[in-house]
């Protein structure tokens, strides 16, 4: 099973404050442990929402607003993609993440083709597989 671990934005991350050397060192060690266990697929940090934008849709029309956006507890600062056998295993790993204060992370299972059932027709399934294979080659 694949999980996306979403790291929530904080006042600091939204202000563009980079992590301390200590935190980055501890994170590096944690990442190495996950990589050694073969479950680390990706991990990325995002620039603050001040450098981002939002698009809303209505009746075929879209409207764009530029960041920054309100820090409402739902904004994202970064993520990992990990592969574990269960949600419990993902939780157990993430309990060991070297966060030291107000941080919060959210663990969400990634859809796999099997989850879509009949909605994913054989043709769509084939397209999806081809798309992934080609995107991964980049």
């Amino acid at each position, binding site marked *: 099973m*694949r999980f*996306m671990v*979403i790291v929530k934005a904080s006042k600091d991350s939204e202000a563009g404050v*980079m992590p301390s*050397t200590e935190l*980055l060192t501890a994170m*590096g060690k944690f*990442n*190495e442990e*996950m*990589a*050694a266990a*073969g*479950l*680390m*697929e*990706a*991990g*990325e*940090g*995002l*620039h603050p*929402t001040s*450098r*981002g*934008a*939002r*698009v809303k*849709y*209505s*009746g075929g029309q*879209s409207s*764009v607003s530029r960041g920054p956006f309100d820090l*409402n*507890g739902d904004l*994202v600062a970064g993520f990992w993609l*990990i592969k574990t056998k269960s949600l419990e295993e*993902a*939780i157990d790993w*993430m*309990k060991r*993440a070297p966060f*030291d*204060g107000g941080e*919060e*992370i*959210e*663990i*969400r*299972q*990634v*859809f796999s083709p099997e989850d*879509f059932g009949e*909605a994913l027709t054989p043709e769509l399934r084939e397209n*999806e597989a081809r*798309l992934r294979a*080609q*995107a*991964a080659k*980049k």
Partner: protein
Amino acid sequence: MRFMMLMIPLGYETAPPTVQLDPERMAAMMRYNEALKEAGVLITLDGLHPPSMGARVSFAGGKPVVTDGPFAESKEVLGGYWMIEVNSRDEAIAWATKCPASSNEIIEIRQVQEMEDFSPELQRVAAGFTELQGKGKR
């Protein structure tokens, strides 16, 4: 420059684990995904199961506290994402406006941090991180 297009479907925060996707909407999204791929901008993409199947870990007291989903206080949650490679935020916005999204959906565009965005000292600490990624790759 890499950007995440974060899909935020309003209402997904309370969706049941058995949420069903509409085949027609999926087919439209697949056509959009194909267009991203054909333009050479798509790096990767994923969909996420509803938060009712997920968990949160908070570190407020220095100790991890686990909460099972759904999360009553969320107003917005992720439904999925695309990672794309484009030349500017405007180009990322232009791609997002082409998405066949419905009026209950928002796409947030966020620039991904690259190694060169870190100070030389932090780059030294984070060296090797890029190689760790993909160790759990499917």
